[in-house]
């Protein structure tokens, strides 16, 4: 099959985080394949640690969160390469560290004093983008269209960018490149370019509840029941996410919700690059689609 040519999008450091490589490797596989097909050259970050978690570690001790984040950034700075991250949380952490340290000289010095002890220095010279933002900005819906080999026709998808995709906007998206704080549509626009039907629903911007679930599962289940009810009423068959925490929460919660009679049917949850990989012609086997807990059986059938 003739393939539309892609231009080189340069070398980027891939920051896969903790959850995706160590728990959801199929999301990493889809992401790597898609990014390379689009023309990026991916480099691993030597010695990268947990970003660390913008929810967990920041709540435990903000100073440690900043210093560990700055250490990761310092590795990319030394390599003089910008970062593409696969996780809302990692993107938030690394962008926040850049924001805080570049706006607060006291913190900047304090963190660099800590890093000096391990022979590292933070300077604030690299940019960090979420993979969805990177693909949208570097390629975009219009240039994706001719690359589609298997259009996602008749596939009805609800999107969930996730809270930390662009919030807090003054930290994550000060230039307003990701759209309004309560209505980012990057995935919607790109999925439509891939041929899919993107379904709008009332609770589109309702939080997945992952962070609450760390303290108490019940409120998170209520949020998710509300979310699924809304997207099913709107006619969606799939949910597209941009974050592994949202993924784990929204996929994992379905068993409980079904048991409690709060969810009428399975809604397979896919990460954005999985949909993109399928549209670009990668097979479900190549990207390990059958490893999902809520299996997208019909989708796999449809794409045969």
């Amino acid at each position, binding site marked *: 099959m003739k393939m539309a040519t892609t231009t080189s999008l340069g070398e980027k450091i891939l920051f896969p985080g*903790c*959850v995706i*490589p*160590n*728990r*959801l*490797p*199929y999301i*990493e*596989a889809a992401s790597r394949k898609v990014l390379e097909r689009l023309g990026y050259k991916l480099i691993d*970050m*030597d*010695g*990268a*640690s*947990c970003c*660390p978690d*913008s929810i*967990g570690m920041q*709540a*435990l*001790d903000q*100073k*440690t969160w900043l*210093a*560990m984040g700055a*250490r990761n950034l310092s590795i990319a700075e030394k390599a003089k390469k910008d970062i593409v991250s696969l996780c809302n949380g990692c993107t938030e952490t690394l962008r926040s560290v850049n924001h*805080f340290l570049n706006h607060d000289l*006291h913190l900047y010095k304090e963190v660099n004093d*800590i890093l000096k002890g*391990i022979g*590292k220095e933070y300077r604030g010279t690299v940019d960090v983008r979420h993979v969805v933002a990177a693909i949208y900005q570097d390629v975009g819906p219009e240039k994706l269209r001719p690359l589609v080999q298997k259009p996602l026709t008749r596939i009805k998808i609800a999107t969930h960018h996730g*809270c930390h995709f662009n*919030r*807090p*906007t003054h930290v994550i998206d000060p230039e307003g490149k990701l759209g309004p704080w*309560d209505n980012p549509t990057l995935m919607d626009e790109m999925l439509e370019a891939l041929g899919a039907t993107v379904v709008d629903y009332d609770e589109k911007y309702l*939080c997945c*509840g992952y*962070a*609450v*679930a*760390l*303290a*108490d599962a019940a*409120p998170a289940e*209520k*949020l998710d029941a509300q979310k699924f009810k809304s997207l099913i009423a709107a006619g969606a068959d799939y949910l597209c996410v941009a974050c592994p925490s949202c993924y*784990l*929460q929204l*996929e*994992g*919660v379905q068993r409980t919700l079904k048991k409690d009679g709060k969810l009428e049917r399975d809604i397979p949850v896919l990460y954005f690059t999985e949909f993109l990989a399928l549209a670009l012609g990668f097979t479900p086997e*190549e*990207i*390990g689609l059958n*490893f*999902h*807990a*809520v299996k997208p059986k019909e989708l796999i059938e449809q794409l045969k």
Partner: protein
Amino acid sequence: MTTTINFEFRNQILGTHNGNTLSYCYQCGTCSSGCPSAQVTDGVYNPRKIIIESLLGLQQKLIEKKVPDVWLCATCQKCVEQCPQDVELTEIFTLLKNLSSAQNLAPKAFYAQGKTILAEGMSIPLQAAIARRRTQLGIPEVVKPAVVEVQAIMKATGLNQKLAVAPKEEAAPKQKSAPKEEAV
């Protein structure tokens, strides 16, 4: 019931880089009216109340008794986006969580994650089954984190000491809602 007021508590928040926005609050309640957590907890979580209690120095009520419980914040940042006074609510709640953590009052899942990161450099260690799956999927080995450097940072910030006396966990945090198949 006696109410203990701790003026230092308020100053502690006001003295930090984003905590100073605490004093901008005029209690309009926009934060609570839009808050998803407040909505599903019948007010057990209530951001407006957390702010006024911080301003009044009601440390004991907020930190020790968790009324309202700051740990139910979803960190969704909706309140931050909507606040007409630009109060950095999530940042202030982070400071409160840090104070709560230091007194061993955080939910156990948070200490569990902290301990895993201290030991492994990652919040989720690589399992043999996942390593095999990676090979099957044709992706490279996971980058090895520089654990020694992570530990040095935690030593410098004192977090390792706090984790050493933290409550024991029942299960690792991220295991909770993980798909079953993954545990192979």
